[in-house]
């Protein structure tokens, strides 16, 4: 037995990320979101024009909200088929108790998780910086020219690192650094207009999906399927 340094509840919440699927799925969602934004940029180039630009923004936001609603179900579906029952199944405490309070008070940014921490905190903490980025840097608007991609990518990297640093699934500092550096490269590389807004999200998505895929492959290789279905009790 290893020495217990964190509560079993927190270990259970951390366990949700052991196979890399949450990161992989979130990364893929960001890639799709960037793809949709690129299509919208190509379809309606030019300055802000009501109501079409607002509808574009609404579409992106709607996609993120749909992701939040269906992510848990999709992950359950994938976990059952890809990773279960290699290392067992556990359900962390319910999220109902704190969900409303969390969303309404924006307590996502506080460093200490609540006593009944839950896997969904990661989900909210991770989606939150993306929502903020979409809001702060609206599609079809680029007042800072070639520094747009480096700034937004760095902001995303720092935000993801900072808001998750005390969560059940913190990012490593070097992971955020690599993402930020990847964005900085585009300060000196010409980026076509329609690609400027989607690119930071595309970079973030690719980086997260790559990390998730690596974790998934490593998990599948190090945890072969048990010979009996679950090591079932006698």
């Amino acid at each position: 037995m290893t020495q217990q340094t964190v509560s079993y509840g927190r270990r259970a919440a951390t366990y949700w990320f052991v196979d890399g699927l949450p990161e992989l799925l979130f990364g893929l969602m960001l890639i799709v979101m960037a793809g949709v934004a690129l299509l919208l940029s190509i379809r309606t180039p030019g300055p802000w024009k009501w109501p079409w630009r607002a509808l574009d923004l609404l579409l992106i936001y709607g996609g993120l909200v749909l992701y939040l609603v269906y992510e848990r179900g999709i992950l359950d579906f994938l976990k059952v088929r890809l990773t279960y029952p290699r290392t067992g199944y556990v359900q962390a405490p319910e999220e109902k108790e704190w969900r409303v309070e969390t969303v309404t008070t924006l307590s996502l940014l506080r460093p200490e998780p609540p006593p009944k921490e839950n896997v969904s905190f990661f989900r909210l903490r991770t989606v939150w910086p993306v929502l903020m980025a979409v809001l702060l840097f609206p599609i079809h608007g680029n007042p800072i020219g070639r520094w747009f991609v480096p700034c937004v990518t760095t902001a995303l990297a720092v935000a993801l690192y900072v808001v998750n640093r005390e969560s059940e699934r913190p990012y490593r500092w070097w992971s955020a650094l690599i993402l930020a550096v990847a964005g900085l490269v585009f300060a000196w590389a010409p980026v076509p207009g329609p690609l400027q807004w989607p690119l930071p999200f595309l970079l973030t998505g690719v980086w997260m999906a790559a990390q998730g895929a690596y974790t998934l492959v490593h998990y599948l290789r190090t945890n072969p399927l048990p010979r009996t279905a679950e090591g079932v009790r006698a």
Partner: protein
Amino acid sequence: MTDQAQEIAQLDRTIHEPARLTIMLILDGVNEADFLYLQREGGFTQGNLSGHLTKLEDAGYVEIEKKFKGKVPLTLCRLTGEGKAAFAGYSQRMMGVLKGNGSAG
């Protein structure tokens, strides 16, 4: 017999056994966990875990449900209301004993 000795004598022996205490600790921190997760988290062998779970189930502290996740059988374990109350009582009593001895707090 001192008060402390009396308190210790009144500890719930079903929970006090280290393996069962580990199981109760794990299950107290989660909603439910399957057999394999408990086995890995607690460092149990199958037979050992099975035996201790049976004792906890017989005491009414743990509820065991057999179901399927996809096509894979799943044995879910969770604390019952009685189990939660018993574990809270055990924790309180144990903390009292340790605090009384200056060992905790």
